[in-house]
């Protein structure tokens, strides 16, 4: 009897939301074309320029009190103050807004009301033990 061949490593280690593709299975690792070389060189140039700016400020004899990181400032601004101006009402955003905004509210309204109705019914039928009110349990 012939079993099916075992799944290939690329299929086993395929990336998903929680884990990324290993570098050994990524064809970009083995790419030695001149375009890739030029791209890497440009990225290195940007990186070195930024590093130079940072190290100049860091090793300054009279350094500034706080070395501001413009990337951090932009990230904070984008996540806090740039969301409302760039937000737009689309069918998807209005649906998500209703689900996340009204969903939990309505859910808990119905759950608590049903629970209290059931308790009230049991009290009317006399099944619930009503101990006298005490703050000390």
């Amino acid at each position, binding site marked *: 009897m012939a079993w099916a061949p075992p799944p290939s490593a690329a299929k*086993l*280690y*395929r*990336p*998903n*939301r*929680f*884990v*990324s*593709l*290993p570098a050994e299975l990524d064809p970009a690792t083995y790419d030695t074309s001149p375009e890739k070389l030029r*791209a890497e060189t*440009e*990225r290195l140039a*940007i*990186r070195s320029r*930024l*590093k130079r*700016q*940072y190290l100049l400020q860091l090793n300054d004899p009279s350094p500034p009190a*706080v*070395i*501001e*990181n*413009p*990337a*951090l*400032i*932009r*990230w*904070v*601004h*984008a*996540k*806090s*103050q*740039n*969301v*409302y*101006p*760039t*937000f*737009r*009402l*689309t069918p*998807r*955003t209005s649906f998500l807004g209703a689900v996340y905004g009204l969903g939990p509210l309505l859910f808990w309204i119905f759950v608590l009301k049903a629970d209290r109705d059931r308790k009230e019914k049991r009290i009317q039928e006399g099944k619930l033990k009503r101990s006298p009110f005490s703050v000390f349990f």
Partner: protein
Amino acid sequence: MAAGALRGVLWPRAAAGLRAARAALAAPAGARAASEMSQDMMPGPYPRTPEERAAAAKKYNMRVEDYQPYPDDGLGYGDYPMLPNKSQYERDPWYQWDQPDMRHNWGEPMHWDFDMYIRNRVDTSPTVVPWHTMSKHFLLFLSIMLIMFGLGEIYPSYRPVGPKQYPFNDLYLEKGGDPNKKPPTVIHYEI
């Protein structure tokens, strides 16, 4: 450096709200309290023309070919670049980062979910055992155990039992019976 920038998040936001309410007297809308960066260095709306894309790539210190904004479906990302969803664990541990604990360089564009991908939190490094094998094994085990426990609750199986028999006339004295009276006789056997 991080604390100074982050402490300025809530305060300018509340201040901007107050200023919008008193629009006639206050500073123009969108003004920030404590930063020397001009408005064109800050994130803005989604770039529509190629010139805007090039300007945004330059603003974020990225190559124009690398710069890819989030798709424009109104969720509030603006022109922020979409970087690969990889955690900081995957970055080279031996390179001299400017911030070694975050594995992050000064001025490098940060992922939108940067605070999720730090090394104390989510780790997306490839696992030794494939993820899908792991999840399959775990879910199989969990579901089989849960089904068996559920079946055991619905159809319990144990040897025949009877009610527990207590000595000394069903513990007459221990349960508070009167010692002067004769207890009712309780016999648990038959001869």
